[in-house]
């Protein structure tokens, strides 16, 4: 029986270790998907032997894929939760490796026709928790506020909830859309709409200046304001790997953090970390 055990172990090890090689797969944050695609395109152009496959789906989906072993890199617009690290720990005996790859000013979108130009964090919170439902209550016209947001698999959803809503639940009237681009489109078409998302997607709408509180100065999510920390809703954009990256994976991540990779960050509309 010991022989049988040894034979089966040897056969399966051989099978396990000689699986065909694979491309670098990247999955996760929709906020980061265009940035990740640009990185991949440029890297593949410079490294013809390497294939980088990028898909979105949301930060939560990406982290789940990392835990399930179906992606090499997970893009996330929020830090990994302790419960997610716990799952990685159980499966891979690793807490995961966090790489800060870019910085983003989380923008609040308004329709161009909206007379409002700035909002305080408190006002935004009240709108998104359903306490404020009419634009006149924040200095605008007498119109119902149409609230757009992201689905709960989105890191942007989680970040906004934790850092703007103070952990409170979103209003049940919020219309959840699959992707920041969809939020931008919806706000662009509805003069009473409000939405939130990454700066890189903001076309056809305007950004609300955001104030820390009612007495503070409002800041727009510009590069200077995000870098200086004056803009109150800024965040890092992360990449996660299961364990310490090696080989081609490490080369790719090193390139992203290089001056060349960080230049792509600026081109796409985010802010470099270096």
């Amino acid at each position, binding site marked *: *029986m*010991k022989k*049988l*055990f040894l034979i*089966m*172990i040897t056969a*399966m*090890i051989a*099978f*396990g*270790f000689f*699986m065909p090689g694979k491309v670098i797969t990247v999955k996760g944050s929709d906020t980061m998907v265009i940035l990740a695609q640009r990185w991949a395109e440029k890297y593949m152009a410079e490294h013809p032997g390497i294939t980088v496959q990028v898909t979105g789906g949301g930060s939560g989906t990406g982290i789940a894929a990392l835990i*399930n*072993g*179906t992606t090499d890199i997970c893009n996330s617009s929020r830090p990994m939760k*302790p419960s997610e*690290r716990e799952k990685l*720990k*159980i*499966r*891979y*005996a*690793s*807490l*995961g*490796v*966090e790489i800060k790859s870019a910085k983003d000013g989380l923008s609040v979108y308004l329709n161009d026709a909206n007379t409002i130009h700035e909002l305080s964090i408190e006002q935004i919170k009240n709108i998104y928790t359903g306490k404020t439902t009419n634009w006149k209550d924040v200095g605008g016209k007498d119109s119902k506020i149409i609230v757009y947001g992201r689905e709960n698999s989105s890191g942007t959803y989680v970040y906004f909830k934790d850092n703007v809503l103070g952990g409170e639940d979103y209003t049940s*009237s919020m*219309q*959840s859309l699959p992707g920041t681009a969809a939020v931008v489109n919806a706000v662009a078409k509805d003069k009473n709409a409000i939405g939130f998302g990454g700066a890189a997607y903001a076309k056809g709408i305007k950004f609300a200046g955001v104030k820390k509180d009612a007495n503070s100065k409002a800041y727009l999510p510009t590069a200077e304001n995000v870098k200086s920390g004056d803009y109150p809703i800024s965040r890092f954009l992360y990449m996660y790997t*299961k*364990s*310490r990256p*090696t080989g081609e994976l490490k080369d790719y991540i090193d390139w992203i953090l290089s001056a060349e990779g960080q230049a792509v960050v600026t081109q796409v509309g985010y802010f470099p970390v270096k």
Partner: protein
Amino acid sequence: MKKLFLFLLIFTLITLKTFAQQDTTVAKVAEKLEEVKDALEGLNESYLETKGIVDALKKIKISGYIQAQYQSADIDGAASFAGGNFSAGMHQRFGVRRGRVKFNYDNDLTQYVLQIDVTEKGFATKDAYVQFREPWMKTFDLWAGVFNRPFGFEIEYSSSSRESPERSRLFQSLFPGERDLGFKLEVRPQDGPLSLFNLKAGVFAGNGVNAETDNNKDFIGRLGFSFPFTEENLAIDGGISAYVGNVSVPAGKSLVTVNSPTLATSDLTVRDAERSYIGGDLQLYYDLPVLGGFSLRGEYISGKQPGTSSGNGSYTAAPAGDVYLRNFTGYYLMYVQNVGDFNQFLLKYDSYDPNTDVAGDQIGQVAAAKLGVGDIKYTTLGLGWIYHWDSNIKFVFYYDMVSNETSKNLAGFTENLKDNVFTFRIQYKF
């Protein structure tokens, strides 16, 4: 002039008609727009209604796993803790070790959980509990029903995630079925330094998943910690646990204390046999560059265990005869090494000495000592390899090498038994 007048009249009439037609067209367009608006509002209402239904359905979570396996033992009818004894005349068997389905209604702060186990042996309830979290600090959870006992690490570590096919002999003996019936309070601070610690404490029936048989209630608790060092990719977890309870001695029966190689003491007056354990557990996780993460886990328990004359396992029903009390100790150590994304190798060693007051040839030497099969110490060395085919399927190859204490004075245990077991298992988890 008449012609001009006629022309102007006709022109005016045509113009008026055109305007009238335009008015009609505008009215029709406005009407259509209104219809579209109504339709959109209807769709929006329908969407919100559907969203409400979908949101409600998303609260229902179903998960489960099946473990189908082939096992081979050294001899026919081998006694085993690797999924139960082999039947007489058999040393090979196929079986479904676990066939679990878990239903969870997750209402954020409240949870309904029901888990069943369906195999060729039948149907069994595993979990049936409610969980309630206070809404203010979201730190205190109350559990009620049938669920895992909050003792140590291995009990609560899911069988679907555990690398070795079975729990250590120690845990299978002390906590058969892992679960018990009762109430539990969990304290998990959300923020600050206290979030590194957690406390679980509860009161239980003490009979596993079976119905209550007496008024005795057992306390079980664990104070745990979890220190993540994310920069180093290192985690150190652990805890200390305690079990304080009793087993009722039936009327007319004795409490027999078997703590001497020469003479057991019997007491007909004692009605409660002490069941008390204290334990400590430690887990270390570290990501080795290039190779992959490893975990090193260990657990140690000692205490007093009531049992029968021939068995040291915990009671799952009211005792019928004399209750034997033994001082025991046990531990296990397990090393799991990930190699790449798909392979895991493991080494596990466990030891369970059900009676620390006697050893070797003392067992069975003097009849008055009332020592026997229930006092034999066992150690098990397990070697295994796991291949993760994908996120759902894994293959497990595991070989248990079991050694028992020998006594020239105890029939059947004069030499090491042939009870090694090879297990090949396929698990599907969703």
